[in-house]
Structure formats: structure tokens, C-alpha cells
């Protein structure tokens, strides 16, 4: 068992409201990712679950039992810190053994467990070193080993891959997913990297300024963002948002363009809207049924694809294209829109209007 449920967490540091009523429900065995930009309150949420900070309001339930006032040691959790927090005076072996020593396990069990961990994470040759003699990737593995050496209720991970270089990060993503699957344990994983969130998570909670914006599977968060902000935060290149309004069976852009109104667009005529278009749902075309006229603004070749910037009115539209595409800035182009996959947001509240009709 390993469920984590937090309800109405509030925490302020001075004048800054770090958490503003955060409620999350992490089911047993889930890989639950808390995603948000820096300063969104992700780490504070994790520290609240761990019991490291005193809360202003809210409750933490572990396995259905109220653990809000429990000491960290009594919560039976393990945590990987962003900067690893390996004990500098202790060897790698002692670092990994620490959670078992704290719980006074017999030494035979400890050495067996440390050996198991060093096999799992390929750090056997490091056991006698001290943290200062390790590379960033090695430290990360040791920190992970220290967390995994026990079988706690849940694992808390605070941006554990942030300090690694790109290649290692991609490797460790796969590794972590593998470990999660083999352990079947509950992971609460904090990151500001949407790729990590989308690639590893069973469920994603998107956090902004201490408030939960949306909870759902990675596909849900990407395909059906609850609001304009989530749409803009998740996805790379970021979604393009065009101001417009509905007029009968058409959508009329502020820049003058018109598109057929999607059937699902359940908005009042004349109300200010934002049309959200992801780069992969757009293409630069000669002829198409639903198109936006624009001006080629720039090309951004990325190897496997080229992102074309097209200016529509005052806005830049990001369009994902074949890597072979050519063009000169200033050229007039048409952008074909896959309206079935477009998003519509209320310009005032930012909330998605796409869901009702779909």
C-alpha cells in the first residue's frame, strides 16, 4: 500500500504564498508527476508530504491515515533531493545504508540491501568513495540508491535529474521508469521538465503559483489542457494562441483571418476567445480548406524537423514542418489548420471551451 493524499495545503513564506490550497490524490503504485515552472510550489508540496515544513493549513493522509502532524521519520517515506544531499563525511556505502541504520536493521540485512542497490544502479565500484569524489551522475545514482534501499510507503523525488547532462538525463528517465515498474511502488516526482512529465508519468498534476491547474494523464494534459496557461506550459514549441471571436459559422481573428467554426466551439458570438494551435497540427500549404494567411518570419531547423515561424497579424505561429522545407522571410504563405485538434479558450478567464462540445 502507498497512497498519498493531500488536501488544501497552504503555506506562505513571508508575503509569498507558496501553496494556495493544493489538493492531490496519488493512487497506490502510481508514477505521479507534479509539473510546474520554478516557484510554482512543487518542492514545497513535496516537503509538505515529507513533513519537513510546518503547514499553514491542510492535511496529509498516508494510506488513508491522517499524518499531518507526524514527524518525517514516522511517515515511512523516502526522498531524493534535488542537490542529492549525500552525507559528505560518509562513504557511498554508509550513505546508502543510512536509512537502514536509522531503523536499526541487522548488519547482515544492511549489507545485502546495499549490494542489491549497487547492482541495480551499477555503483558497486563506488561504495568506498565519498560524495566529493563522485560525478554528478554518480551522486544521483547514490541518492537514488539511498531512497530505494528501503521499501517505504512512497518515494518522493525532487527534480532528481535536473543537474544531469542531457544524455544522462534521457538514460535515467528510462532507468527510473524501469525501476518504478519493477518495484510497483508509489512515486511522487517533481519536475519543471515537461518531457520528463509526459514521458514518465501515469498522472500529471500541473502546478502554477501554488495552485493546481489540472490533474490528468500526460495525454489528457497535452491534448485537453484545462486552461490557456496549461496549454502554453505543456508542449514544445509552445502552443500558438490567436485572439479571435465566433461569428455565426465562422471564427474571425483579430488579425482579419476567418476559419470555419468547429462544431465543438460552444462559445457565444462576439465573446473574445483565444484559438490555441499546436505546431504539429499546422502545416505550410499551397491549398487547403481551412487556412490562415501569413508571412514567413523565420525557419528554425532542428534536424528531424524544422519549426517555421509564420506571422499572422501581430502574432507568431509556430508550425512544425518537414526538415526539407525552404522559404525566405517575408514570403506570403498559407497555414493549414487541423481544426479538430485545435483548442479554444475564453480570453477573459483562460478556461478551455473545447471540452463541452467534443
Amino acid at each position, binding site marked *: 500500500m502507498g497512497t498519498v493524499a493531500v488536501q488544501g495545503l497552504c503555506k506562505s513564506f513571508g508575503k509569498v504564498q507558496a501553496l494556495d490550497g493544493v489538493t492531490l490524490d496519488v493512487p497506490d503504485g502510481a508514477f505521479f508527476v507534479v509539473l510546474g515552472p520554478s516557484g510554482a510550489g512543487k518542492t514545497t508540496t513535496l516537503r509538505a508530504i515529507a513533513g*519537513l515544513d510546518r503547514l499553514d493549513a491542510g492535511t496529509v493522509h498516508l494510506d488513508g491515515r491522517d499524518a499531518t502532524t507526524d514527524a518525517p*521519520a514516522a511517515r515511512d*517515506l523516502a526522498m531524493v533531493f534535488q542537490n542529492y544531499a549525500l552525507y559528505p563525511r560518509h562513504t557511498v556505502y554508509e550513505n546508502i545504508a543510512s536509512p537502514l541504520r*536509522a531503523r536499526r536493521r541487522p548488519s547482515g540485512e544492511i549489507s545485502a540491501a546495499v549490494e542489491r542497490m549497487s547492482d541495480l544502479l551499477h555503483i558497486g565500484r563506488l561504495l568506498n568513495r565519498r560524495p566529493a569524489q563522485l560525478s554528478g551522475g554518480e551522486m544521483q545514482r547514490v541518492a537514488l540508491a539511498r531512497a530505494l534501499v528501503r521499501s517505504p510507503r512512497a518515494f518522493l523525488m525532487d527534480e532528481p535529474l535536473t543537474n544531469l547532462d542531457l544524455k544522462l538525463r534521457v538514460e535515467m528517465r528510462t532507468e527510473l521508469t524501469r525501476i518504478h515498474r519493477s518495484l510497483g511502488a508509489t512515486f511522487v516526482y517533481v519536475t519543471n521538465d515537461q518531457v520528463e512529465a509526459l514521458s514518465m508519468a501515469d498522472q500529471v498534476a500541473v502546478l502554477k503559483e501554488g495552485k493546481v491547474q489540472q490533474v490528468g494523464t500526460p495525454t489528457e494534459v497535452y491534448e485537453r489542457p484545462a486552461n490557456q496557461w496549461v496549454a502554453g506550459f505543456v508542449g514544445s514549441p509552445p502552443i500558438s494562441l490567436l485572439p479571435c471571436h465566433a461569428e455565426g459559422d465562422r471564427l474571425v481573428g483579430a488579425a482579419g483571418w476567418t476559419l470555419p467554426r468547429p462544431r465543438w466551439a460552444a462559445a457565444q458570438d462576439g465573446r473574445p476567445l483565444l484559438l490555441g494551435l499546436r505546431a504539429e497540427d499546422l502545416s505550410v500549404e499551397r491549398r487547403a480548406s481551412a487556412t490562415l494567411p501569413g508571412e514567413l518570419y523565420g525557419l528554425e531547423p532542428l534536424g528531424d524537423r524544422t519549426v517555421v515561424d509564420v506571422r499572422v497579424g501581430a502574432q507568431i505561429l509556430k508550425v512544425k514542418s518537414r526538415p526539407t522545407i525552404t522559404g525566405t522571410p517575408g514570403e506570403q504563405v498559407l497555414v493549414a489548420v487541423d481544426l479538430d485538434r485545435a483548442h479554444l479558450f475564453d480570453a477573459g478567464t483562460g478556461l478551455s471551451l473545447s471540452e463541452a462540445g467534443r
Partner: protein
Amino acid sequence: MAVSVDEAVSAGPTPDRPPPARRVRRRGHGRSVLEVVLLTVLAVVMLFPVLWMIETSIKENRDVYAVPAEFFGFTVTLDHFRDVFVGADGGRSALSVAFLNSVVVAGVSTVLATVLGVPAAWAYSRFTLKAKKDQLFFILSTRFMPPVVVVVPIFLMYRQVGLIDSKLGLILIYAAFNVPFTIWMMKGFVDEVPAEYEDAAMLDGYSRLQAFGKFTLPLLVPGIAATAVFALIFSWNEFVFAIFLTSSDDVRTAPPAIAGLIGGTTVDWGLVAAASVVFALPVLVFAYLVRRHLVAGVTLGAVRR
């Protein structure tokens, strides 16, 4: 390839024309003439009294009073040093008792200040407290007053509670003076130890105090040593409280005891000098041991972390 800067320069293409700045530095062995002159003057002014004290301590009494003064060629004697420790009756001298008192008073008060100050510094560094800055300022403010300002009220209080003329009284007042200093200096050291070690330890299953004791405290040992030496030096050198609050020979510490040697009809300057040398030695040794931290302590807060 390991080539020092000097080698690289001399092996360069223009060895006959070194930069002018280097030429000046060569002549003065790395310092300009003005620097050397000023440093020499400063050194003589600072060190002459010390040299004179050491000379006096090993001169025979008639040489001490010789006019003109003899710098060299006097008879060397260690009688004064014997007199510091051995009394006229062959037993223990009053001065040696005073030195022992100094050791006890300085030692115990330092231990007390450290035991109280280090956990306080940890708490001030780690926890969010109401009006923390004001509290810390208040703690520091107890050091604003010079001892001579507070010695009279303390004398009266000590007389009431029976702490006058006792080593315990001195220990308590020195500890009280050293605790604020310990808190402030140790807080700087604790601030530099990441709190995450304790967080990690608590998740490992340790209590907060265990986490501090097992993981943070060992990292603080150099800082504690440096802070303790500062406290020790303060207590060892302290004169004002000692002379006002103690009077009997078996309680008095070394500073008032040495001062007490001056003021009779005749002054045994050799004995005064020898006692002063013995008194100064521990401080020199300790200051040497913590010379690096001495600078760190002085510049604490000025260094960006």
C-alpha cells in the same frame, strides 16, 4: 607540462626586457622599499615591548636596572621562571595557583558557552522564529557594554547571592559574555552547512536532534574549535571582572595576580616579566592554531556565500 610563471617568463622571447613592474618587485624581494620601511617601523614598535619582556624575564635583577640598558651580553638566568611556579617556602607559589585558576575558569566557561551557544546557533540558523533578527540583535547587544560599565551592578548582585570571590562566579560571567559571541560566530558556520543533510537524515528515520548530532555536528567541529579558542582567549585575558569580583589568592586568576606583583615598595620586574611570558604563551599557541579561522571570523559576513 608544468611550467611555473617565472620559468615561462624567463624562457620567453624577450628575456632582456621584463615588464617594469616586475623589475621593481625583484629588487624589493616582492615588496617596494617604502613597504619594507613601514613594515619594519611597525614591527619594531609592536614587537619591542614583547622582546623587552622576554629579555627582562631572563636577566638577573641587577642587569634589569642597569643604566644604560643592556641588550646583549647580560647573564642569562631562569630564576624568575622558577619563582613563578615555586614559592619562597619551596611550595607552590601564589602565581602558580593563579595560573591554575585561570586554566579552570577559562576552560570551564568556554565549555559552558560552547555547550549553550552551539545548539542556540543551530536553532537560529535552521528554524523560523518570531522576530529572529531582533532576538539576535538583542543577544549581540549584551556585548555592547564594556565590562567596566556592568561590573558594579554585577558586584552587588554577586554579593547578594554569594558568588563574590568564587571561581564559579567568574565562570558564569565569562560564559555569559561568551555565549552571544558563540551564537553569532557559530550561526555563520551552521548557515554554511546545507539543511538538506538534516532533512535527508530525518527521512532516513532519525529524529531532528539525531539528525543534527549525527550529520551536522561533525561538520561543525572546525568552526566549534575556532569559536571556542576565541572564547578561551577572552576568558584567559579578562582582567576587569577578575580584579573586581575576586580578592583571595586561591580564587584569583592570573591577570590580576600578575598586576598585583606591581605596587609594593620594590617591584621584582624579572618576576613580572617571567609571569607575563608564561601567561602570554598559551594565547600565542592557540592564536597560531586558529590563525586561518581568526581571519575567517573577522571577515565573517563580508564573504559572499
